[in-house]
């Protein structure tokens, strides 16, 4: 392949002359245990061609049978994207020859998608600050993934010019949901950010549904960017390019920006934009033309005769709707407001995987500061040491809340609380049981404390002299000695207060 460098004009200059229109197609690999039409496993990274059978290899005579879990996931995705769910729909065959597709047709959906006509609200920057943009969802349909071709030799890693190709069919037949937006108009200079915000919001929705790993770097979430330019919003859409291989959120934004600049250059020089597939190059930040077909591809769609139509029971659909998780964007805004957290603080909670845990801990009676402190501090450290996710630790939000309440009441101090957590994680029971069996309650009776203070004062006359001489910071030595004597079960603040009382010194 000869890589020619396309002319690109400045983004602002392009926006001054043209109005961009986008369409985003996202393919999501579902994290079902088995493939779309057979029982083969779907794990990523298996030995090539180890997760295949006659069905997903398209051997003569083999027939597909629909994975009910994939249908359920498709409907839940549609509902989460505010779509209508078809009362009756069929699969269709998309016919084209390519060696990574075992049957030389892809079992997909065509004019009868399972979900259609929805939207997703996303927050994007604008000239007037953050605003909410409603992205229309055209459809979400089910299909099967293709195998993966590895082209060996040649300079480009693409099929043309390769010495030979290897095909791994482990991915063939993994359930995919293709989510297609309606044309996104009016984005103007914020089009790149809108595209990124949409894919981000979509990813968060899919993650909240638990239907996919949504890992762009592993290909479980893939985005194609369709983009066209026109002179003004009043005229029909221009010719679009379809950019594939956009495999990170940042790339979504960059690819839109690049295509705006490239197409503007073509149009400004009097040329015409070609309807074509282009490939995004992460390293160089440009798109290059794929092979231009001499004639338009005709996929000869027709209803898949090997599969009976799908007619989801409306009661089941309503049940799925009723059990949908809250939209992640809506939830974030709600919690940020309720908790009074900044965007940055919310990000750190979400990125730590602690949002559900903190919310449940607060709901169980802990205050927010305490809940965040334990999950993001001590527990995050333990999880990190053990190489597990926070949610997989053997402690529940209710248990964390109980510990935090005991701290707030003064029955535990932080040091003791850490020991209680250690006991709970070790399977010693609920916090109360750990406290009882380990004898961890704070000593709240002043009697033993006063005796211990007396001993410490007697043993450290020089320190007492410093305190009474105007250096209250020296009190730490006495307090430390008392804590040691009570095996950490004293409330340090109380010890300090009693000490200053005894010495007749005012603590500053």
């Amino acid at each position, binding site marked *: 392949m000869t890589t020619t460098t396309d002319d690109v004009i400045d983004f602002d200059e392009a926006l001054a002359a043209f109005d961009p229109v986008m369409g985003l197609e996202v393919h999501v690999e579902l994290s079902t245990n088995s493939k779309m039409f057979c029982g083969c496993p779907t794990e990523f990274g298996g030995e090539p061609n180890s997760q295949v059978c006659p069905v997903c290899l*398209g*051997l*003569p005579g*083999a027939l597909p049978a629909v994975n009910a879990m994939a249908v359920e996931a498709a409907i839940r995705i549609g509902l989460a994207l505010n779509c209508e769910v078809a009362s009756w729909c069929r699969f269709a065959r998309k*016919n084209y*020859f390519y060696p990574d597709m*075992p049957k030389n047709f892809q079992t997909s959906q065509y004019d009868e998608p399972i979900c259609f006509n929805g939207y997703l609200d996303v927050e994007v920057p604008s000239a007037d600050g953050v605003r909410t943009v409603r992205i229309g969802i055209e459809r979400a349909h089910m299909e099967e993934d293709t195998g993966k071709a590895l082209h060996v030799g040649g300079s480009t890693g693409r*099929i043309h010019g390769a010495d030979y*190709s290897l095909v791994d069919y482990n991915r063939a037949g993994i359930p995919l949901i293709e989510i297609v937006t309606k044309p996104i108009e009016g984005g103007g200079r914020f089009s790149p950010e809108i595209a990124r915000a949409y894919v981000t919001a979509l990813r968060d929705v899919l993650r909240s549904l638990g239907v996919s790993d949504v890992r762009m770097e592993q290909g479980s979430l893939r985005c194609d960017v369709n983009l066209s330019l026109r002179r003004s919003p009043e005229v029909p859409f221009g010719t679009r390019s379809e950019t594939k291989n956009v495999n990170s959120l940042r790339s979504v934004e960059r690819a839109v920006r690049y295509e705006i600049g490239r197409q503007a250059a073509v149009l400004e020089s009097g040329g015409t934009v070609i309807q074509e597939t282009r490939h995004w190059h992460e390293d160089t930040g440009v798109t290059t033309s794929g092979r231009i077909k001499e004639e338009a591809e005709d996929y000869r769609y*027709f209803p898949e005769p090997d599969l009976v139509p799908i007619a989801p029971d409306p009661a089941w659909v309503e049940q799925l709707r009723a059990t949908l998780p809250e939209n992640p964007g809506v939830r974030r805004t709600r919690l940020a407001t309720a908790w009074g957290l900044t965007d940055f603080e919310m990000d750190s909670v979400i990125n730590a995987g602690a949002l559900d845990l903190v919310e449940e801990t607060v709901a169980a009676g802990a205050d927010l500061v305490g809940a965040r402190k334990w999950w993001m501090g001590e527990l995050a450290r333990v999880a990190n040491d053990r190489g597990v996710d926070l949610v997989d630790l053997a402690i529940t939000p209710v248990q964390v809340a109980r510990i935090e309440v005991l701290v707030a009441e003064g029955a535990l101090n932080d040091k003791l609380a850490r020991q209680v957590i250690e006991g709970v994680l070790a399977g010693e029971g609920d916090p109360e049981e750990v406290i009882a069996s380990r004898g961890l309650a704070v000593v709240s009776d002043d009697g033993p404390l006063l005796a211990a203070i007396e001993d410490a004062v007697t043993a450290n006359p020089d320190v007492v002299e410093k305190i009474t001489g105007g250096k209250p910071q020296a009190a730490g030595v006495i307090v430390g000695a008392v804590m040691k004597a009570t095996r950490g079960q004293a409330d340090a603040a109380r010890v300090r207060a009693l000490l200053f009382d005894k010495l007749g010194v005012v603590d500053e």
Partner: protein
Amino acid sequence: MSAEGQHLTRLAAADIAAAIARGDVSAVEVAQAHLDRIAEVDQRVHAFLHVDAEGALEAAAAIDAKRRAGEPLGPLAGVPLALKDVMAMRGIPTTAGSKVLEGWRPPYDSTVVARLRAADVVILGKTNMDEFAMGSSTEHSAYGPTHNPWDLDRIPGGSGGGSAAALASFEAPLAIGTDTGGSIRQPAAVTGTVGVKPTYGGVSRYGLVALASSLDQAGPCARTVEDTALLHAAIAGYDPRDSTSINEPVPAVVEAARRGDVRGLRVGLVKELSGEGYQAGVTQRFTEAVDLLTSLGAEVVEVSCPHFDYALAAYYLILPSEASSNLARFDGMRFGVRVGDNGERGVEEVMSLTREAGFGAEVKRRIMIGTYALSSGYYDAYYGQAQKVRTLIQRDFAAAFEKVDVLVSPTAPTTAFRIGEKVDDPIAMYLNDVATIPVNLAGNCAMSLPIGLAPEDGLPVGLQIMAAAKADASLYNVGAALEAALRDRWGHLLIEEAPAL
């Protein structure tokens, strides 16, 4: 071949199974007798593409061991069977009559094969067929034609000519066929044997190399109605691997085949499936058979199915369309023959060369028609319109079954024609299936059974019985009544008159 062996090959499946169950004869002896018969006559008949003598004898020995151990045996235990080469069978060459699959040994069993094994049926080998089941004469096999045992210069029908010829030449008492537009029934008609196309979804298609998915249906073939029913019961039933399979109990076909009582039954003569284009001797024997049904107590009336006139045209759009897609996988990449891969050529060129060399003319013709019919801009006019005709034909059947219990017609317009006679005239060839195609389009069920020899050429004539979807048992009831009456008239089954070869 010994006289005893000769005798074994002429028994009905039900009698063979009974003899084995009683211990009068071993399954190995039965299998060997049939293998000997194949060795004796198949060079002239060419019913088989592959004979699995070793596998058959092994399976037979295992059944004998089971019997000796006192384990329960199925109603067809030890009965040999000829399997149409369109059914995947683990480790056994499966070509579907095509060069493109030469040497391919499936790594899995079709559901039909799995059920045959579970029923202790002994599979002798794979039978010849028109390539990918496209044809009505078995002349379109890439491996040469099969000859009709009644007259070796004539065709045995198609696409399942090999299975029908195996029955008529006493190489096997049971056979599996598949019927997309008549490929079980028309061969049965021209070889004097019995064949049933079950209701669509009645027998799993899993492992059946697809021709047209919405039309294909595997079914039983035998020399008697009862044997056909026993085989039907063995292979039918719900299969979760086939999404179009019917999840209901199998119709009581064996009971119906043993009942054979048509008194008070309403039988409809399809007006559109008679007259012009039907050979005189075919019409004559058909009329006599209908009279016989009347004399047995059936009430016969004429019924009109006006849209049957469009069935052939609709069929030759739907079938090629689905076939063009189903046959796309034969590209030399993953299995079967690969042509022209010299390390220099690209993948598309190798795919093209493979398909060019691997497919015969009739297959290419239908792939091209189907590709065209599905093309953007033509879909509505061809595939879409054909699907509407299909609906109208379903309505014709529904209206007819309001008035009658079963419909009857000649199975094929003519008796067996000479090899080579129609091979270069596709339309003449397609017209063989004019009476059988409506049932495939509507998805209901039908049987062909022998009703005599045409006076002008002395060749078998078949009668087709059609019943509503899931009413497969009705076919066997009517078929058994007619078969018994004809046997009484002749003193034997028609097949007994077949040449000894």
